[in-house]
């Protein structure tokens, strides 16, 4: 298609999503690139680090200097195998790297070392959970290893290499290990296609985070998604022409990009036009895509097996030992924890959104109740972190500290308000909570007034229970603890409540 007709196609008004979905069946193919968090690069000993001065994390291999040779990062291979297993893939017993050849200045050797016809992992699936709890199975075609390219910055109005005044290249990212996960065509999604795309990328992000093989920060490009979208008439059996929207770098944007492409395709097809097979750029500000490079299947990368690397052989023992190391799948783990902790759906969703699941789990394992752990992490710690513009996990608060703080409250040494001050002093480096309480003289005399009042109120409102206790059924006191907790907003010590009830009734505990 020539540029005139392509421009004409771009001018066609997208259909509404509802109209589009009534007429067409969307088919998606999602390619997710995951940058690994290995200490060194895929094929060199240079550091794999983000955010440093340009061209400092490079050595002669990364720059493609004459005479250099690649050497595979064994840790990256392990990460790839783990990811393959987590995606329910088969792991190749033997696989190779290939050279994908094209001239571009961000690629120091003018080829990218990638796996071509022999990926390390293939034929898997991942179940994604949608907003309403329904599950959708996404089939995985393959997951393969490759190296990242450098980063180009184009100076000039266009922001692209064409028409730039000059371009700068930073090779710090060149050679960073990547795993590319490619789905099989996702069909039958219907109107849920955008949501499935979002849930899928979110699930992949959770999986690689859970495996601790990537920092998984989408804003840094640790996880990047290319979304292929095509439409077909229901029952057509033949896929339509696809577009590939590159580098969609947030979970939300994935959903929006798929939605927009479905609408755009539908607009063109309904107007009797045809889709150009091309790459599209995602524009966050307008939530639209724009035409990139025309891509044909005839792109000739002159792939051939990388002769500088020997094939990777994965023994059964190796794969099984890695499988044994796999953590519980994120979805399963979330289900288990939510049930165990008794959080409401809303509470649990907030915890997930705050990224504090690990912290709360650890705090609970140190002996805090789930409610206490949630209260501290979602409350005061998050507030402090927010004020200091860091992640809650980055404040340096240990689970043991929270448990200690809680014990001080339970023992009546400090109250809630003081505890919050102690936490802040702790974050400021004043030592353990006990030290802070002692050094600052924060220990308060236990004030039973409020608690006594709450207990008396509960007793007055539950005379039947009081009668039972009077009659010697001490277990009935439990029925008073709930109302007292409610009254004291959960801050009451159950033992103390029992003690006060018995005192009021003139019994010794």
């Amino acid at each position, binding site marked *: 298609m020539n540029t005139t007709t392509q421009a004409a196609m771009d001018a066609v008004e997208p259909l509404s999503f509802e109209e589009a979905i009534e007429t067409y069946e969307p088919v998606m193919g999602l390619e997710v690139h995951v940058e690994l968090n290995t200490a060194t690069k895929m094929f060199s000993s240079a550091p794999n680090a983000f955010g440093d001065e340009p061209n400092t994390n490079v050595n002669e291999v990364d720059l*493609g*200097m004459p*005479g250099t040779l690649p050497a595979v990062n064994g840790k990256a291979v392990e990460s790839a195998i783990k990811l393959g297993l987590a995606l329910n893939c088969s792991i190749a017993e033997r696989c190779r790297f290939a050279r994908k050849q094209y*001239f571009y200045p961000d690629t120091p050797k003018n080829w990218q070392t990638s796996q071509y016809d022999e990926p390390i992992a293939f034929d898997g699936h991942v179940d994604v959970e949608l907003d309403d709890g329904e599950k959708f199975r996404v089939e995985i075609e393959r997951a393969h290893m490759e190296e990242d390219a450098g980063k180009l910055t184009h100076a000039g109005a266009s922001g692209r*290499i*064409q028409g730039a005044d000059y371009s700068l290249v930073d090779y710090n990212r060149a050679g960073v290990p990547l795993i590319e996960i490619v789905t099989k065509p996702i069909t039958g999604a219907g109107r849920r296609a955008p949501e499935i795309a979002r849930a899928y990328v979110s699930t992949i992000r959770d999986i690689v985070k859970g495996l601790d093989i990537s920092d998984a920060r989408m804003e840094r490009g640790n996880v990047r998604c290319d979304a292929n979208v095509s439409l077909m008439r229901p029952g057509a059996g033949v896929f339509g022409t696809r577009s590939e929207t590159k580098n969609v770098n947030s979970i939300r944007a994935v959903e929006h990009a798929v939605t927009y492409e479905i609408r755009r395709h539908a607009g063109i097809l309904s107007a009797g036009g045809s889709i150009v097979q091309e790459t599209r750029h995602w524009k966050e500000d307008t939530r639209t895509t724009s035409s990139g490079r025309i891509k044909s299947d005839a792109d*000739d990368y002159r792939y*051939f097996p990388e*002769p500088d690397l020997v094939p990777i052989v994965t023994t059964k023992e190796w794969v099984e030992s890695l499988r044994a190391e796999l953590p519980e799948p994120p979805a399963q783990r979330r289900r288990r924890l939510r049930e165990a902790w008794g959080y409401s759906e809303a509470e649990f969703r907030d915890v997930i959104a705050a990224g504090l699941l690990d912290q709360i789990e650890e705090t609970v394992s140190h002996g805090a109740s789930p409610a206490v752990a949630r209260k501290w992490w979602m409350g005061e710690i998050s507030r402090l972190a927010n004020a200091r513009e860091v992640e809650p996990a980055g404040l340096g608060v240990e689970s043991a500290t929270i448990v200690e703080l809680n014990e001080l409250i339970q023992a009546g040494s400090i109250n809630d308000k003081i505890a919050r001050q102690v936490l802040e002093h702790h974050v400021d480096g004043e030592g353990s909570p006990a030290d802070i309480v002692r050094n600052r003289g924060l220990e308060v005399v236990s004030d039973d007034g409020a608690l006594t009042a709450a207990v008396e109120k509960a007793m007055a409102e539950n005379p039947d229970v009081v009668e039972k206790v009077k009659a010697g059924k001490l277990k009935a006191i439990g029925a008073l603890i709930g109302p007292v907790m409610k009254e004291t907003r959960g801050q009451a010590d159950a033992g103390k409540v029992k003690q006060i009830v018995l005192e009021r009734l003139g019994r010794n505990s």
Partner: protein
Amino acid sequence: MTSTSNSLIRLTAAEMSAKLRAGEITSVELTQAHLDRIAAVDGTINAFLHVAEAEALETAAAVDRSRAAGGTEAESLHPLAGVPIAVKDLIVTKGQPTTAGSKMLEGWMSPYDATVVEKIRAARMPILGKTNLDEFAMGSSTEHSAFGPTRNPWDPTRIPGGSGGGSAAAVAAFEAPLALGTDTGGSIRQPGSVTGTVGTKPTYGGVSRYGAIAMASSLDQIGPVARTVEDAALLHELIAGHDNKDSTSLPEAEYPEGRLPAFVDAASAKNVAGLRIGVIKQLQGAGYQAGVLARFQEALERLRENGAEIVEVDCPSFDYALGAYYLIMPSEASSNLARYDGVRYGTRVLPEEGPLTIERVMGATRAAGFGDEVKRRIILGTYALSAGYYDAYYGSAQKIRTLIQRDFDAAFEQADVLVSPTSPTVAFPLASKLDDPVAMYLNDVATIPANLAGIPGISVPGGLSEGLPVGVQFLAPAKQDARVYHAAGALEQLLNDTYDAPLWAQVPALEEVTG
């Protein structure tokens, strides 16, 4: 040049090592003698693209000081410490330019040392300089160097072979006792053959390729160049071994002995009784000069007289070796040479007119930076790897490669080593084949199969034809490099006895040639 230094440079590396250790000579004397020789004859020979006089003398003086200090400092010196060496300019060196014989890298300084260079530096061998070669090692005559051809010390109107003509000529002309070469299709052995020197292509993976500028990754191998088999073995032992930076390098445990074999011992055995030597049917006859075949037959006769069992072996797939090689090598080369684009290092040429886009700068750089032979191979390789042609060309060539490996496997059932002339002809006159690439390629017909199969090979002098050296090649199974030293060391001794002197000693005095 004094007669003392004239006699110093004619010693073998082993003799130099012995005299250094005995305190009879110093490394500074020895190194200076070679620098003097280079100054005297290299104007004619053009073996060196760069001479590192100051660095070489500094290394030599440091070795002499260590020797003089005595005790453990002297005792811990490597046997080759203080023995000078020349390095093919395809192998990168810190502090000395590396050009690969190409304008593309003119003036480029490597920020790192090749692993073999680290090893020769660790052994404290003074590096005399960098030797000439066909551009990016593509050629069989060193005429494709962007910096002028090297001339053959036996007859400066003739080629010294290639691509490693510089290293071979330097050693033949006593400008260096030892040199490093690289061999992708015969670039160590064929120059050895036509300059009357010894050159070994080790088993693929036997020596780290890290820092050898790649032509064809699956074929390239660094190896020693010397005047005697023992000297080649000495240098081979120094540079061999596994390297974490080269994934294709062999772990020592994979050798039959479970460690690096003793090549010097093998070279010194000089006994062929009971050795089964297979003559490769396909590597003789048509295309081989009568004089070459005559010397070859005489060599076989010497070996037979001394107890070797000579058998003929059939390697029918060898007829396709040259064709397969000229698909695999250019395919890999087209890829390996893609990095020379003017973006990061080396030459950058701007287009004379029109817009300055990245593609046009890359294009102008490659058009101006590469010579014709390099471009020919890049075009050939790019074509062979193209979609739709890959299976027919690269794929078929890889199948032939497998067949050649099978031929070798079968041949080595019948023989311990195989033998052939190294090169079909003696050194030919300069410019005589420059316009006929295929005629040039045919020079490597006997050496290429070893590269395709990854097995070791050596070229050892086999006498003269029309006053010019003829080479005999021995081949052995992979990781059995010791066998080629064994056979070559023995033949060398037998021919020395026959001619009453080593062949290399008969090279004409260059001073007379140059006046």
